[in-house]
Structures are given as C-alpha cells and as structure tokens.
C-alpha cells in the first residue's frame, strides 16, 4: 500500500476517526501515525471535522464516584512514584515489601515457572557475549528489539515497578543521538514515552502506570536528539516489537 498517497491517507484517517477502520488495519494505521506526519495531520484534521457531530449529543452527568475513582488513580500514581524514588536508593527494602500486594501460593508458583521460562527465552533470543544479569529477571513479560539483520539490540524485562533494559553489544552507539522507548496503547494514537534507552549496559526505567500488557499494541524505539524527543512524539521510529507475555 502506498502510504505517500495523500488521498489514501485522508480516507484511512477519516475511517480511523469515524471508527470503521478496525482490527489489523486500525493497528497498522496506528503504527503508521508513529512515522508519518501526513497520517498524523490527516487524523487531527478529521478529528476536528467529525467531532462537530458530537454537538448534537446532550450532556449526561456521570455518577459522582467516577470523579472519585479518577482522583484516586491520579493520587495513587503520585504515591507510586514516591515509592519508586525511595526504593531506587536501595535503602528502603522493608518499605518496598510493605507496599507489594500479597501473592498467593499459586501466583508464586506461576511466578517461579514464568521466571524459568523467561530466563530460557532470554537465553535463546539473546546472543550477546555478555552474560545476562539473570538474577534480576523476575517478571513474565519481555520484549526484544532486533535490527534488520535480526541481531538483538535491547532486551526489556518488565518488573512490578520498573523496566530493566539491557543494551546488546550489537547496538551501534551514537554519541550525537539518544534512543527513546515508547509504548502504543490499543485504540490510542499518541505514543507514550517510557524513557531513554541505555547505549550500553543495563538501565532501570520507571514503569509507567499505564504499562499493562493487555493494553499495549506495540513497543517502539525512536532515534532522538540528545535528551529525548523535543516534541513529545517520536522523531524517527527505528524499531518496533511486541511485548511477549509468558
């Protein structure tokens, strides 16, 4: 499909906004918006046009509890961030354990099995000369970014509070640029930044509160000026991958 065709992009954007673009076609267009200014601008234009249709809908007051839940979620996020900043110093392990949800035995068994599977997968996909910090892997969600030659570049290990990212020796190090990690949530057009990726070694990123496997359509890496995206959107998408749930 020729994504440089303005008419085609306009119609895809119109059906995306209308909602009739569904399934894989919708996911493809969401990915296209990551890299195509034409697609993003066409979508914004149709949103401005078609959302005028909503003027015919009379407001209906939601229940008071909706606002209470929103406030709670926002406040919880603030608390969660505070917890992370404290535990990252490695001085408050007791406090960290207090805020962890209690795990059932079944969950613990599953967690152990997932850890083993996780390590096995990591060992298979990772062909770096440098051994992985296996003791760090406790999660059941992983992502591996590979280049065109299928060489692994980054391994992302998803943990309760953090994303542990390890850069591979295969990664071409750029001193004039940074690499930024993004998630694209299902049904949403704007990618969400997850932070800058390491150019070597291991880096811990704070896990975004909306990082939930079931909500994520895609993960992406973009090439950015030093310091990260200046616009809040990816500048040049280099790689995309799926989140693997074990």
């Amino acid at each position, binding site marked *: 499909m020729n994504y440089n065709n303005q008419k085609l992009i*306009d*119609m895809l954007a*119109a*059906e995306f*906004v*209308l*909602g*009739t673009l*569904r399934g894989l076609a919708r996911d493809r267009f969401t990915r296209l918006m990551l890299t195509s200014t034409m697609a993003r*601008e066409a979508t*914004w234009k149709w*949103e*401005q*046009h*078609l*959302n*005028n*249709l*909503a*003027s*015919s*809908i*009379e*407001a*209906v*007051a*939601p*229940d008071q*509890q*909706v*606002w209470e*839940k*929103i*406030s709670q*979620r*926002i406040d919880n996020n603030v608390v969660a961030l505070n917890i992370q900043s404290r535990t990252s110093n490695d001085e408050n392990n007791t406090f960290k354990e207090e805020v962890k949800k209690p795990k059932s035995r079944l969950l613990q068994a599953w967690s152990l099995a997932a850890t083993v599977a996780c390590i096995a997968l990591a060992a298979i996909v990772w062909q770096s000369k440098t051994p992985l910090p296996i003791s760090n892997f406790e999660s059941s969600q992983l992502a591996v970014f590979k280049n065109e030659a299928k060489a692994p570049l980054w391994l992302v290990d998803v943990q309760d509070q953090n994303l542990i990212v390890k850069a591979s020796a295969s990664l071409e190090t750029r001193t004039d640029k940074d690499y930024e990690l993004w998630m694209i949530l*299902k*049904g*949403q*057009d*704007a990618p*969400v930044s997850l932070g800058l990726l390491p150019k070597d070694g291991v880096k811990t990123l704070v896990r975004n*509160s*909306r990082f939930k496997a079931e909500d994520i359509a895609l993960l992406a890496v973009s090439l950015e000026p030093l310091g990260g995206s200046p616009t*809040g*959107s990816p500048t040049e998408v280099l790689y995309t991958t799926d989140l693997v749930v074990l």
Partner: protein
Amino acid sequence: MDNDHLLSLLSATAQGNKKAFATLYEATSGKLFAISLKMLNNRAQAEEALQDAFVKIWHNASDYQVSKGVVLSWMISIVRYRSLDIIRHNKVRKEQSLIDDYDAVDSSSEDEDLNIGELDVSYEDDSKLVDCIEQLDQQQRQAIHLAYYKGLTHHEVVDHIRSPLGTVKSWIRRGLQQLQRCLTL
C-alpha cells in the same frame, strides 16, 4: 464551551494543577460521558471509558497542541477511541436495542431515562460540517451517523440497515469523500 477557557484549564492541568483538572472535568465530563454512553449503550462501561479518558488527559495534557484541534475535540477523540477499544475487546453490544433505535418499535429500554438510543440528530452548532453533512445522501448520512455515534463496524451497519457490505462501504467512503470536498471549499 469556550475554547480559551478550556485551554487555560488544560494548560494548568499539564502543570499538575488538580483544581484546574477538576474544573475541566466539571465542564466537560457530561458531554464526554454522553458520547461514550451513546457508543457503548452501557452505563458502567461508559463510566469506565470516561475514567480512563480523564486519567489519560491528566497524564497527556502537555501533549496537546493547537494543531490537534480545539481542546474539546481533542478530549472527545480520547474518549471515543477508548470507547471503541472497549467495544472491540469486550464485545459488549446490545444489538437488539440498536435495532430498536432506528425502528422505534420498542420503547422498553432498560435505561429509559438515559435516552441513549435516539439517532434523530439535531445539531446545536452551525459548523461547516453540519452544512456539509446535510448535503449527503440519506443513506450516506445514516451510515456515517451509525458509525460515529454508535461505534458500529461496516458489518454491523450492514446488519443494522440490511444492505450489502459493498454498498455500505461505498456509502461511507463516498460520504466521507464528499464531506472532504465540501469542507475544503
């Protein structure tokens, strides 16, 4: 709703001002909830969509740019996409009540007070879109309305108005093309 007022509230929200965010919620939640309710036809799920949308608005307020349209349109898109996502993943749909909306043969809705089935559209504003959409053929307009207001897929529109898939796709595509021509004149 005055866009300058909403813009100032959104700007303050982007800086972490919860009071401004609460005022923004008060000003817009009724409209956004009604949009979601019309699409999902389910109060609990519409509240879930509204909740998720406002949490996203809180986190992404700084991503808003004027080029994305007026503030309310940007917010409407967020709640619509979340509602479409819920439709897509949970497959919650009251097909029978949708048919009732158009046939107007059954007024015994579970939530009569919500009046969410009505698709007798009357626009409050006088935007160019309203002029342009009034110029569409009745079938094109009906198909676009069903997709926009109810979040129906092509196949669901087919079931709803009992016309072949190719015809429905053509109505929507040609309707959108005609809208685009009209809007750029």
